[in-house]
């Protein structure tokens, strides 16, 4: 779809541009490669999480379990690597397999029980959080050498910046999600499901299979995000990132994806995540602003985007009715 057909993304880009403008006017150095590189690194795990959420939301669903899955993966990795001396890469593979399977399980629940995604993934959230506590109650630091090496891996950027492994993986995940949504039949089916499930079925989309795959994808992304988070914090903690699923949802909506499904894309989400990161960065740099302004700003942006989307929806249906129904 061309940009002209994608007004919400346009609005996201404008908001992003304005934020960069305001921030750069006050703190010119944020345009440096180093700050950009850090912004990408700091946003990496939220970014990956939000990409999975984007796919779910486009399909008309929601996944509340992702934050808890992320935390579970980080705890699992810490336990496996530190307490059971498992090779980190094998642990990574286990984590991704487990989280993908968990997502598929939630998707099956939604499809076979015909239950609302909100409630099914809520149960998933309880289960995954509870699972964290079954593994440990404490924060477990990870001291494996591999972690040191992985977190120092980076591609140099001009002007002193660098793309760390985390940032690189997020960008790869972004590229993969974009390709999947835009250029596969599966991607088209995701949009179809979000547009109108009944029509999609009439047009030959296998809704059950697609639903399960969508939540499996979201679970996989949560698993990857968990690995990134584990490397980022070099520890596993059961109470980590409580409420991050809200940030992920907010990033998706601010990125121009319609919460009711059917419209949106991964690029917007990427910028949505950067907007959230920029707000945090600005608040930190400003010094006098307190951290809660971040939540208020996020909530305000969320409201603005929802209101704009609703307005556009109402206008377009009115226009359609005016044009002879």
């Amino acid at each position, binding site marked *: 779809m061309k940009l002209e057909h994608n007004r919400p993304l346009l609005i996201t880009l404008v908001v992003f541009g304005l934020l960069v403008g305001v921030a750069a006017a006050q703190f010119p150095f944020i345009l440096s490669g180093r700050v950009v590189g850090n912004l990408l690194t700091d946003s990496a795990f939220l970014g990956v999480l939000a990409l999975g959420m984007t796919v779910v939301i486009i399909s008309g669903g*929601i996944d509340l379990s992702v934050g808890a899955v992320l935390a579970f993966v980080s705890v699992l990795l810490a336990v496996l690597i530190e307490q059971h001396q498992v090779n980190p890469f094998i642990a990574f593979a286990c984590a991704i397999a487990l989280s993908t399977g968990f997502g598929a399980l939630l998707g099956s*629940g939604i499809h*076979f*029980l*015909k*239950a*609302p995604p*909100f*409630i*099914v993934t*809520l*149960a*998933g959230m*309880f*289960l995954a*959080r*509870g*699972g*964290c*506590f*079954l593994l440990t*109650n404490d924060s477990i630091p990870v001291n494996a050498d591999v972690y040191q090496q992985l977190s120092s891996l980076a591609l140099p950027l001009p002007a002193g910046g660098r793309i760390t492994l985390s940032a690189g993986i997020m960008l790869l995940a972004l590229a993969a999600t974009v390709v999947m949504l835009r250029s596969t039949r599966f991607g088209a089916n995701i949009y179809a499901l979000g547009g109108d499930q009944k029509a999609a079925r009439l047009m030959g989309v296998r809704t059950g299979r697609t639903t399960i795959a969508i939540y499996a994808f979201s679970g996989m992304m949560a698993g990857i995000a968990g690995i990134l988070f584990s490397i980022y914090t070099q520890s596993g903690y*059961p109470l980590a990132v*409580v409420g991050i699923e*809200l940030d992920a*949802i*907010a990033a998706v909506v601010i990125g121009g994806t319609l*919460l*009711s499904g059917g419209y949106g894309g991964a690029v917007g989400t990427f910028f949505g995540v950067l907007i959230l990161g920029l707000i945090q960065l600005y608040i930190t740099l400003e010094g006098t602003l*307190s*951290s*809660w*302004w*971040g*939540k*208020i*700003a*996020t*909530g*305000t942006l*969320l*409201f603005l985007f*929802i*209101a704009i989307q*609703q307005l556009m929806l*109402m206008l377009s249906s009115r226009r359609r*009715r005016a044009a002879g129904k």
Partner: protein
Amino acid sequence: MKAARESIRRGAPQLSALIFLLVVNWVIFPPFFDVSLVDGRLTGSIIDVLNRAAPVALLSLGMAAVIATRGIDLSVGAIMAISGAVAASLVDAGHAWYVAVLCAIGAGLASGLWNGFLVSVLRIQPIVATLVLMVAGRGIAQLITAGQITTFTNPQLAALGSGALLGVPAPIIITVAVAAFLIFLARTTALGMFIEAIGTNPHASYLVGIRTRALLISVYACSGVTAAIAGVIVAADIRGADANNAGLWLELDAILAVVLGGASLLGGRLLFMMTLVGAVTLQALKTGILLAGFPSEFNLVVMAAVVSTLLVLQAPPVHQWWAKKIGGGRAVMAPWPALASRRARPPGKPKP
């Protein structure tokens, strides 16, 4: 009287679940039902269960009304944080306790009106509309407390959380009073009927002349107010407002309590009494886990199991299977009724 007996009969599965849990608690911990008077205040495990259930019970009363209209209110936890922050900051600044409480409830009302406005005027899906305040609300609460955990010493306000009247802890009294008021309202006015009508068939309700828009706003406003009262109680109990953690995730507990009480998320059933039973059941479960010697973290896993069980029991395919197996259909499957495959249309949206 007839109506009361009727609701008890229909709530039999919920009541038996609660009684079963209480008995299990009693088996695990024989002094469970022992109650004694300490410093003019009733104490004992069972009182503790009721006392701890109070905030969620309050939230779930408002949530029950919202869910009966086919909506949902995700912002109640954040509203609790806001109202607690308002109350604590005001008494801290030297205002009288009742001024603080009234302003806190006013803040809850305003929050609820905002949600209602989004849902019924802008016609945003409830889950999306209330998400806004869920995200921003804690920020607002922190703004009010300037990021601190605002503590206070005002004895009257603190009494709302930890005081007692005739030995009964204040939170229980307040919850019972609010519940009694709401039940009175639902029984003696037509509001209960109208709310169930909107949740069952929004368009037909509009056509019989019910002012669906105003009613929807009021329902969200009510949810805001009950959340605010819960927020005041929690703040009063700990003599401070913790904007970060007050009411955290309690919206989920409240939704669960409503569903446990036998209402359907598809709307159409307004069951205040059974919702209270659901809230107490939830707390009895949590207390039981502790009494059984499991770490409190185990709660989450049990909650997951409860939600999953509810999901399976309520699933339309399972219903059909039951109906076929047993015959008789609905009557036999009374535990989670009103979940026949009614197709939803967004609330208040007139058909073109």
